Structures are given as structure tokens and as C-alpha cells.
């Protein structure tokens, strides 16, 4: 058994490509993508109390613009703000609104103890509250067709119940500081979450906006890294089709959509096929020079 664990440890320690965007995938193997290259979004009219609607909205607008200005992609966004909507998710037959909303209260405080949603789920929408725990900063909930991966709605909730968001430039706030310095930057967080909205998952590239980190005071994710641009332009190339991901073309095209296993719905059973691709995927990337 010890030998087996050592082998596993060695596999885990394999070097990861320094630059390799990752696409979110469904359990059916499809990569998530938008069919339309023009994507609407809207912000809840409340914005962020304390900062004001206009400033919170402006920070999000800058974040959307950052992705929109990438020249090798024709993705664009339409701002339909403000919205009175506070509910995230997407019902069958609806048109996706792609809502940005700051949650001001934790559901443990906002929903009565005997509320049915505490057992069945749904308190976040019913009571306009944060239900993902005190340690989570922001969550993107993506609704998609499971067989094709086509996204029909993606909403971003920001945890203002537990985190203080700011929109200013400046140094990270020190202990007790709350003005003229950066706590949790809206634009920084939004730019990262919009990457998820577009179908990108976290990248192992530490220079990428889609690298999975958000240290307090961080502003670096306001700007895209080379890896983010490559990811966007691979999925939404100007005047070109969106490459579809299947387990077969994952091997042939590289790792743009590789190695993730499941995008989160359903079984964790990646099984032996996933393993067969494991080592190769870790060194592969679309158009890259080698795949191990």
C-alpha cells in the first residue's frame, strides 16, 4: 500500500504546464460555451450599499470591457442594467439575464429557522441571501445543456455578507483600515468570475486572471494575462467557430478543455479513462509544442 501511495504522490507532483487555460466541462464531456457571441448582463439595482449602485456597476462594466476588448475574439456584452431581479439561476424556457448581485445577508440569519427552503434548498433566492458559507467570496452559477455544454445563463453572486468590497486603487488595507485602500476589489473579483461566465475554469498559470487565487488587496486580476487571452480566443475566435470538446478531440487537440474530469454536476467517478489521459493532459495545451 505504501508503494501505491508513493506512486500516486509522484503523479500528483508532476509539473503542470506553465500556461494552460482550462475549459469547464460537463459530465458528458462537453465544454461549456455560449452559442451567441453577444452576451447580455445586468446588475441588480441595489448595487452595493455603502458604495452605491453607480460605482459597483462601473466596476463590473470595466471588468466586462476588459474581456470584450481582446482583439482576437469577437465576444461582446450588452449591458441591460439595472434590474430589480435578485434571483439567480435559470428556468426552462427563460431568456438568460446573467445577473450580478451582491448578497448582503447570510441565509442563516435571513431565513427563518422553520423555512422549508432550509430543507429543500432555495433560500438564497427566496430571502435574497448568501448560502455558500462565510469563507466563499463569489460564486458563478452556470446553467447549461448537459449534452452540448451550451450555456443559457450565468449569474454571479458576491458575498457582501462576509466580505468588504472596494473599488479604489491603492495598497492593501492594513489592520483596521477601510478607506483609501483595497479590501476585496470588485473589478478584480468580477474579471475573474466573468472568465467563469464565459466557460473558462481556473488556470494553473499564476500570471493568469483565471488563476485560482484572490489574496486580499489583489488588483492584478483586473488585467488579463496571456493565458486568459489565449483561452478566450480559442473558445470565441473572431469570425471562427467555437471548438467543441469531446473526450476524443481532447486528446487530438490538446488540453484546452482537458484534464478537468467533470465540471461539477453529478458523479465524481472519472474512472479509468480519465486516468489514461491524466499524465498527458498535464503537459498539453491547444497549439502547444508538445503534449508529453
Amino acid at each position, binding site marked *: 500500500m505504501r508503494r501505491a501511495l508513493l506512486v500516486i504522490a509522484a503523479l500528483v507532483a508532476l509539473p503542470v504546464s506553465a500556461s494552460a487555460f482550462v475549459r469547464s466541462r460537463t459530465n458528458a464531456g462537453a465544454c461549456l460555451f455560449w452559442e451567441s457571441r453577444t452576451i447580455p448582463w445586468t446588475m441588480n439595482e441595489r448595487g452595493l450599499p455603502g458604495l452605491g449602485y453607480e460605482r459597483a456597476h462601473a466596476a463590473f462594466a470595466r471588468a466586462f470591457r476588459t474581456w470584450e476588448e481582446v482583439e482576437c475574439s469577437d465576444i461582446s456584452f450588452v449591458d441591460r442594467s439595472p434590474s430589480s431581479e435578485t434571483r439567480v439561476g435559470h428556468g426552462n424556457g427563460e431568456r438568460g439575464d446573467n445577473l450580478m448581485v451582491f448578497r448582503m445577508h447570510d441565509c442563516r440569519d435571513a431565513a427563518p429557522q422553520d423555512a422549508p427552503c432550509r*430543507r429543500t434548498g432555495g433560500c*438564497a433566492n427566496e430571502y435574497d441571501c448568501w448560502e455558500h458559507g462565510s469563507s466563499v467570496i463569489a460564486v458563478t452559477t452556470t446553467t447549461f445543456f448537459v449534452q452540448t455544454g451550451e450555456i443559457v445563463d450565468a449569474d454571479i453572486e458576491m458575498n457582501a455578507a462576509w466580505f468588504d468590497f472596494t473599488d479604489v486603487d491603492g495598497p492593501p488595507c492594513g489592520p483596521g483600515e477601510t478607506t483609501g485602500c483595497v479590501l476585496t476589489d470588485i473589478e478584480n473579483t468580477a474579471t475573474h468570475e466573468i472568465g467563469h461566465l464565459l466557460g473558462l*475554469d481556473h488556470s494553473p498559470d499564476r500570471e493568469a486572471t483565471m488563476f485560482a487565487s484572490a489574496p486580499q488587496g489583489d488588483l492584478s486580476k483586473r488585467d488579463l494575462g496571456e493565458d486568459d487571452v489565449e483561452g478566450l480566443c480559442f473558445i470565441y475566435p473572431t469570425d471562427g467557430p467555437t471548438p467543441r470538446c469531446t473526450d476524443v478531440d481532447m486528446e487530438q487537440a490538446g488540453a484546452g478543455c482537458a484534464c478537468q474530469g467533470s465540471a461539477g454536476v453529478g458523479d465524481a467517478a472519472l474512472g479509468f479513462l*480519465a486516468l489514461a489521459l491524466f499524465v498527458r493532459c498535464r503537459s498539453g495545451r491547444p497549439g502547444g509544442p508538445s503534449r508529453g
Partner: protein
Amino acid sequence: MRSLALVVALTGLLPTVAAGTTAERLSPAELATRSRAIVEGTVVSRQSQWAPDGKRIYTRVRIRVDAVWKGAPGEEVELVLPGGTVGELAQLVQGMPQFSEAERVLVFLEPTSAAAYRVVGLAQGKFRVVEVAGQEKLAVPDLQGLLLVDPESRAPVEPIFAGPLPLEKLRELVFAPESR
């Protein structure tokens, strides 16, 4: 050959580079402290359905309790998790623990109501339990979709467990003196 097969199977379950939700890292002792119940069990069923507002999908997971590490959860527990698949539509909230039917698990639980639980620390609070005849049980973490950060500095940190570990070792860590 059996060892190789085990390695292959477990490696397929290892966390990969992908993640989508940022959360504070919790030690086994912290997981235990925040838990009302800790159980080893077997997933009996998993059912996803729309919330009454027709916009959100939630998945209810029923787990038969095989062994209790903490609390008095009864013979069966029910978890409610955001996300899931209903018909042709799926909803993804990354960082949530994933369950499959008949899967053996160790879960750290906090109540959302008198009759339902959620997993503490999102995917950090769930381990798959793997047992091979003649071998000790292993606890396999699955942190897919979850980035862990230091609670103080918010700097990203490595998971405490990068791969499988003996279940008994995990139990020792959970009930280490500092956890009480």
C-alpha cells in the same frame, strides 16, 4: 497488479488543476469543530430537482450511516446541495462536493434545518472511502472546483491532503487534542 489497479483507480479520483470557488482552508480539526455530525456512510440516493421558484436546481443526497464519528445523526442523513441536473439542463456551482449512488463516504456535516445537512467547508468536508480486501481503508479527498486560501492572508495554499490517506490516520487528525 492489484496495487497497480488501485493506484490507477485512486489517481483518477485525485483533485486536478481545475477549481472554481475560493474558500478558506480548514484543517481536519477545524472541520470537526464546525461539524454537528461526522459520519461514515453509503450514498443511498441522489435526486436533483428545481426549487419552487423554478430557477435553481438543488440535489438532495441521502446517506445511510454506517459509523458515527461525532454527533447523533440517526440511521440516515439527508444533504441538500446547490447544483445538479434535471432533464436536459444542468446547473453548476463549483466547489460543491459530488456524490454518486453506492459511493462510500466520510462527511463532515452541519445542519441547515432539523432534517437536513450541508457539508462543512464545501468539498473539503467530504472524502470518498475506498477499501480493498486485505488492505486498510483509505480516505480520498476530492477538491475539484475548490481553491483553498489561508484564512488570515487570503493567499492561496495547498490542500492539506493532496491525495489519499489511511482513514485511521485521518481519524487521528480529526480527534487530535487541539480539535477538542
